């Protein structure tokens, strides 16, 4: 005991193997980190954390534009569960998201594989062409497809006419508006998965292909055994991100059909917009939004799990 009195606190910690730094030590050591993160934290608090929390609270009130509202318990959720249009738009949103996400994924991987076979210069320029829809304003994408499919002036009906056929009206009727929305959305965003896949394919070490070729693997075999395993994580990343973003998609469907004819192609995002800013019922709109939030946050959880596996994040 007498010996220990001569030691400093650090020496004692070291002696007994409890030299790990405490939380306060780490905070003291890393104050620069906090200094750097504070602006971001303030921005996130003011414009994400607080509004999101305020919105969730709002769903238990009857708040509307300019009115804070009173606490009304679960009435908004009761309203939601008895609302036919909500269930209709929920179902159609699921179909829309499922359809667009998987076609975007499929077209993206094919585009990336094809581009990878081209020589460098051609790859760049053809790549620019093929990726170009992704960079246009989503609202313009809606206008472009509205014009492209227009019964009187559109390209597709004119093409049908060339072969002596009459085109169906793509933005009206029972069936075609759904297809048009999915195709137009696929057009706008498939390049996202093409970009991610292209980056993943380029990063595959060529030795792995050479080794596979030396051991006699054919083209298909090499694709299956070398390429595919490297595409697993990108696939999960694309699926979860695009799922969340397709749920959130507003501008392009809004410009193309605006949820019409009538309420036939009403997506949840457009319904949320209409209830919030046309009917100015903020509380109910956010309640509808909660359904979207639950869906996209499930995708986000999968995404976080996927990027945990790999350190070079695709974010």
């Amino acid at each position, binding site marked *: 005991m007498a010996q220990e009195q001569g030691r400093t606190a650090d020496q004692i910690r070291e002696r007994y193997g409890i030299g790990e730094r405490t939380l306060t030590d780490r905070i003291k050591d890393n104050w620069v980190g906090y200094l750097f993160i504070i602006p971001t934290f303030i921005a996130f608090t003011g414009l994400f954390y607080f509004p999101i929390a305020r919105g969730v609270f709002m769903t238990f009130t009857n708040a509307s534009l300019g009115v804070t509202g009173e606490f009304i318990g679960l009435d908004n959720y009761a309203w939601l569960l008895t609302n036919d249009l909500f269930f209709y738009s929920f179902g159609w949103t699921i179909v829309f998201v499922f359809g667009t996400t998987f076609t975007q994924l499929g077209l993206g991987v094919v585009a990336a594989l094809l581009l990878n076979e081209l020589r460098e210069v051609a790859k760049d320029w053809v790549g620019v062409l093929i990726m170009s829809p992704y960079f246009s304003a989503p609202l313009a994408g809606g206008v472009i497809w509205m014009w492209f499919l227009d019964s009187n002036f559109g390209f597709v009906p004119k093409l049908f006419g060339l072969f002596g056929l009459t085109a169906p009206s793509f933005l009206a009727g029972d069936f075609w508006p759904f297809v048009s929305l999915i195709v137009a959305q696929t057009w706008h965003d498939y390049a996202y998965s093409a970009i991610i896949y292209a980056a993943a394919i380029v990063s595959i070490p060529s030795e792995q292909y050479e080794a596979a070729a030396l051991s006699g693997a054919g083209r298909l075999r090499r694709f299956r055994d070398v390429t595919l395993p490297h595409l697993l994580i990108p696939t999960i990343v694309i699926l979860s991100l695009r799922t969340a973003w397709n749920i959130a998609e507003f*501008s392009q469907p809004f410009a193309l059909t605006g949820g019409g004819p009538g309420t036939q192609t009403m997506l949840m995002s457009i319904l949320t917009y209409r209830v919030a800013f046309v009917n100015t019922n903020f509380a109910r709109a956010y309640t509808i939004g909660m359904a979207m939030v639950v869906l996209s946050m499930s995708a986000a959880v999968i995404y976080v799990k996927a990027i945990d596996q790999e350190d070079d994040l695709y974010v």
Partner: protein
Amino acid sequence: MLNPTKRDRALLYAGIIAFALFAVVPYYWILRTSILTNFAAISPDTGFLPLGELTLDPYFAVWADFAFPLYFRNSIIVAFGATLISLFFAIPGAYAFARLDFPGRQALFYTAVFTIMFPWIVLTIPVYEVFYFLNLVNTLPGIVIALSIFVLPQNIWLLQGFFRQGIPENIEEAALIDGHNELTAFMRIVLPLSAPAIGAAALFAFLTAWNNFLWVFVLTSDEGVRTATVAIHYILGSDVLREWNTLMASVVLLVAPPVIFYGLSRRYLGEGLGGSPGG
């Protein structure tokens, strides 16, 4: 008979051409309309490639007929403001996420991931309420603030990826040994090295803000603060006799800058181009 390599090549080119057509023909159709006379634009007799009837008048009419100089000016102002503000927040934030270690970093990072996947239309509701109380609705500063939140997460992603991979760690270690502290090492060494990445992030932020429709649409009703995207929406919805060629010319002017700039910068940005929902 084609030999296998030739057949593969033919398939490859067929696939590439199919993709290129799918991507470009919708663009071609508005481009075609935008250089026709107003009569030819709506005439059923106009061909697919009406070489005889071309005119650039719609591009002049865009500036004369509608308030497009104002709309494009607003687009540039808000995109520029949003770029500056979001970079001011994103540069230190991204550096902290990529390089510095502090308790709570992981948790913050994950909430940042969630924000990038949050449906924006839902977020507009409480933000509108806040802006309403702060009298920011229908003002350019309000739009700038809203758009800078919109581009902030993507800026953080782009830059943290660069800080993580593009700057060797021993550069900062060397700077620390030379007597810099973390702050001056960042300001004097890391920041100058990051200029190209920051430039790319700025371009990307500018064009994303330029493309944005949702925030401006929700936050404005006055014509004086409309941006070009929102103006095109309102012109489409208005009852006036539509001059399709002029309208399509304005769409071309709206779409061309991002497509051209992204195209030119694609090879430099690489996979960082992920971006965020068009919303």
